[in-house]
C-alpha cells in the first residue's frame, strides 16, 4: 500500500502534469490546498485492485469547467462535499473507494481532497491513464458502455443528476450544467462496484505519476524527441476547446506541436514524429516545469518529451478512438494538412 503525504505531494503533481500531455489543467493549482488538507487530516491511503473490498463502490471524481475559473475560486472543498453527500444518500450503506477520473493534470488531485477529509482510500487507477478532453474517451466508454449516470455539484450546494442514453448526450448536458454552476463544478460518473474493475480502470496510474515525479531532471521512461525555443504560439477556441499550435525552433529543425487542450501531434520539419495516444510533454528547460497548453509562451526554451501511454491505448480499438482523425487532423504525403 502506498500513501500520499506532504512529502510526496510534489511528486504526484509533477507526474500528473507530465501525464496531462499539456491538458487537464495545472495540478499545482490544487497543490497548496492539498498540502493544507494533508497537514490537517494526515496521509491518504492509496490501495491497489487486489486490496479492494470487492463489494465496495468505486467513485471516480473530477473537476469539470474552465481551469481559469478554478484558479479564481478560493480553494475549498464545498463542491466535493456536496457531491459526496449526494453519493452517500443515493448509495446508502456502501463502502466507498475514490479514484481520479483522469490522472493527467489537476484531476489527479480531486479524489484526494475528499479522501483526506473523510479518511477514505484512493484506488491506484483511473479511467484514462493520461488526459483526454471528452467523457467518451474514458476506458468504459471505449469498452462499449453507453448508458450512464453522472452527478454534478456546485460550490453553492446544488447537485444535478444526469441520466443519458449516449456519451455525447452526457457530455453535452454535463458541460451545460457545469457552465450554469459558474464554470467550475465537481463531477462523478462511471460509478461501479469494485468487482467490475477490469472493464473500467487503468491500473497503476497514481503510482506511475508518483514514479514519474521523482526527478524532474531524469524522467523515468521519457524520450526527448527535440529541444528548442518557442517561436510562435497560436491559440483559438473552437466549440469550447482550446485549439492551436506552437512552433519550436532549434538550430537544425522546426517542430510544430498541435493541441486541443492536450498536445496531440508533433511534426519535425513537416514529418510526423509523435501522435496521440502517445503522451507528449513540453518541459521548460530552466524550471523543468511541464507546460500546460494554456500557459505556452513565446520565447520559452523547452524540451519536447514523449511517454508511452498505458497499454490499453495501444490496442487498435482504443487508439482508433483517440486518433488524429478523431481530433480533425488529416495528414498527407507532402506534409501536414490542418483541418
Amino acid at each position, binding site marked *: 500500500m502506498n500513501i500520499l503525504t506532504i512529502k510526496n505531494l510534489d511528486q504526484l503533481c509533477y507526474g500528473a502534469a507530465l501525464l496531462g500531455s499539456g491538458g487537464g489543467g495545472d495540478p499545482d493549482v490544487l497543490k497548496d490546498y492539498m498540502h493544507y488538507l494533508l497537514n490537517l487530516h494526515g496521509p491518504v491511503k492509496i490501495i491497489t485492485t487486489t486490496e479492494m473490498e470487492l463489494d465496495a463502490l468505486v467513485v471516480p471524481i473530477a473537476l469539470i469547467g474552465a481551469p481559469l475559473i478554478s*484558479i479564481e475560486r478560493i480553494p475549498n472543498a464545498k463542491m466535493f462535499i456536496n457531491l459526496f453527500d449526494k453519493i452517500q444518500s443515493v448509495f446508502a450503506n456502501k463502502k466507498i473507494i475514490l479514484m481520479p477520473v483522469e490522472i493527467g493534470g489537476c484531476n489527479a488531485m480531486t479524489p484526494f481532497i475528499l479522501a483526506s477529509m473523510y479518511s477514505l482510500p484512493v484506488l491506484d487507477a483511473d479511467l484514462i491513464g493520461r488526459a483526454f478532453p471528452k467523457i467518451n474517451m474514458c476506458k468504459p466508454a471505449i469498452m462499449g458502455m453507453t448508458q450512464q449516470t453522472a452527478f454534478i455539484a456546485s460550490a453553492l450546494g446544488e447537485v444535478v443528476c444526469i441520466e443519458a442514453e449516449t456519451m455525447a448526450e452526457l457530455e453535452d448536458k454535463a458541460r451545460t450544467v457545469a457552465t450554469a454552476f459558474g464554470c467550475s463544478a465537481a463531477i462523478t460518473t462511471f460509478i461501479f462496484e469494485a468487482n467490475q474493475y477490469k472493464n473500467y480502470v487503468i491500473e497503476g496510474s497514481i503510482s506511475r505519476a508518483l514514479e514519474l515525479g521523482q526527478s524532474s531532471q531524469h524522467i523515468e521512461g521519457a524520450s526527448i524527441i527535440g529541444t528548442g525555443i518557442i517561436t510562435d504560439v497560436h491559440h483559438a477556441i473552437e466549440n469550447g476547446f482550446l485549439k492551436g499550435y506552437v512552433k519550436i525552433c532549434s538550430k537544425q529543425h522546426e517542430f510544430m506541436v498541435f493541441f486541443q487542450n492536450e498536445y496531440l501531434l508533433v511534426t519535425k520539419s513537416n514529418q510526423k514524429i509523435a501522435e496521440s495516444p502517445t503522451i507528449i510533454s513540453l518541459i521548460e528547460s530552466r524550471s523543468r516545469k511541464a507546460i500546460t497548453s494554456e500557459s505556452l509562451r513565446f520565447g520559452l526554451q523547452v524540451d519536447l518529451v514523449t511517454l508511452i501511454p498505458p497499454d490499453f491505448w495501444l490496442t487498435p480499438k482504443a487508439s482508433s478512438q483517440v486518433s488524429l482523425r478523431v481530433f480533425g487532423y488529416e495528414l498527407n504525403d507532402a506534409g501536414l494538412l490542418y483541418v
Partner: protein
Amino acid sequence: MYKLGIDVGGTNIDFAVLNQMDNLLFGSKTLADDGLSSSLCRGIKKLMSEYDFDPRQVSAIHLGTTLAVNSLLELKSLYKVGVIRLASHTPDLPPAYQWPKKHRQHILSGFQTVAGGREYNNAALSPLNKEALLHAVNKLIAEGAESLAIVGVFSPFYAEDELEAEAYIQAHFGEIPLSLSYQVGGIGFITRENSTILNATLKKVMKNNFHDLQAQLNNLGFRCPCYITQNDGTLLTLNEAIAFPVRTISSGPTNSIIGACHLADCMDGIVVDVGGTSTDIGLIQQGRPFYSLNGGFVSGISCQLLIPDVHVLAMGGGSIIKKNDKTYQIGPESVGAALYKKCRSVGGECLTLYDVGQVLSGAQQIAELSRAEAEAIMQTYLHLVKNEIERLLPDVSKTAILLVGGGAANIPDDLLDQRFIRPPHYQIANAYGAALSEVAGKIDCVVQFKNNPEEEILAYIEQAKMIAIKKGAIPDSLRIIEKKVLPLYYMPEPRQRVLITVSGRM
C-alpha cells in the same frame, strides 16, 4: 534639456545624466549611508559641483529603487496587514498559507471573510454585507492591522464590490491604508491575494521615503516631476508608487538589464550586476529581462508580478571575507554602505571583496593578503558566478556576459575570459536603465469578440497608445511590449482577456 536617472540601492545611490537623444553624458555615485533624502541631496550637489549640471535643465527624473524588496528581505518598515476576503462562504485555505513562516508572522495580523464577490459572469455570489464588513474591520484593527488588503472573488473582471468596500471603510474608518486586489493583480485568487498583502505591507516604507521627496527635489532647484520605475521598465508617478509599491519590487534587476544592454549595444546574453551586498545574474532576451514560467516569487511568496528571472548570489563588493583553512568564504555578511569606513584598505576591521580588488589592481597593499591569495579569492568568486551562469543557460560557451555595477570595478580584466564585456559607464548601468524607462499605456479587459477580432484588437492597441501619449510618450516612439489574447475557454460564449501594453519614450 536633460533626463536624470537615479538608482537607489542598499549601498550606493547612482546618477546618470542623459541628453535628449538618450546618450549618457556623465554620471556619479554616492554612498547611501545617511537616509535617502540626505544622501540624495549630497549626490546631486556633488553632480552640480563636478559637472556643469543645472537641475533647472532637467525635464524628468526617473528613480529606480530596491527599497521595497529590501524591506521585505530584512522585514523592516512593514505594516501589519489585515486581509478581508469578499467571498460567498468561509473558505478553508487561509491567506498566506504557503508563505515562509517568518514573513507570515511578521506581516499578517489576521483575516476575515465577508459575504460578497462575483461569479465569472458577474452574477453576485452574495451581495456585499456592509454590517459584516464593519464588524470585520473593527476586529482586524483590534488584532493589530495597520493596513488592509481587500480581495474579492473575480474582482479583476468586476471590481464593484471592492470599490464599494473601500468607500464604506473610508467613510467609517478614515485614513487606514487600503489595497484593492483588482488594482494589483489578475485572475488567480491566491496569487492575487499574496500580491495585495505585500502591497499593503510595503506602503509604510514607500510613504516614509517618498512622501516629501518631490518637495526636497524642488528645493534643490528641480522644476520637473520625479517618476519611479516599475517592474516592467515603465514609469509610475510618485503617488502611484506610494499606492502600489509592489509594482516597483523588481525594478532594480529590470533597470540594470536594460541599462547594460544599451550601454553594451548587445540585445541577447547575460547580465552580471555586482553590487555592494549581492551579485544579480539575469538573462536578456531581445534587450529585455527574461521571465521564466515559475517566476513571480518574492521572498518565497508566489505573486502575480513580472519578476525577471534573476539569480542572486549574496556576494558583492562589500562582502566580508573569512578564511577557513585553505578556502575562502565570501559573504553573505556585508559592510554595506559603511564600506569606506570598515574595509581594510582604509584601516578598518573587515576584509572585503573591495580590498581584494584593491590588492589585485596594485592600488593597495594589505599585510595579511598576498597577491596570490587575493587572486585565489577572486577566482573563487568568479567560479561561483560562472556556476550560476551555467544554471541559467545550458550552453554559455558563446554567450556575451555583460559585467556591470559598482562592485564590478574590483574584478581585474586579466581574470576574465573573452565572453565578458565591460560596457562603458558599467558602474552606473542601473541608473542609466532607470533613465531609459518609458511611459506605458495599458489595457486589460475581458471581451467577447464580435465579427472581426483582429480589428477589435487594433482598436484596443490604439486606445493603449492614447493613454501613453496622454502620459507624455512621444507618439513616434511607441511600440507594443505586450499583446496577449487569453481565451477563457470551456464557456458557451467564449470570452477573451485582452492584455495590451504599449510603451514609448518621454
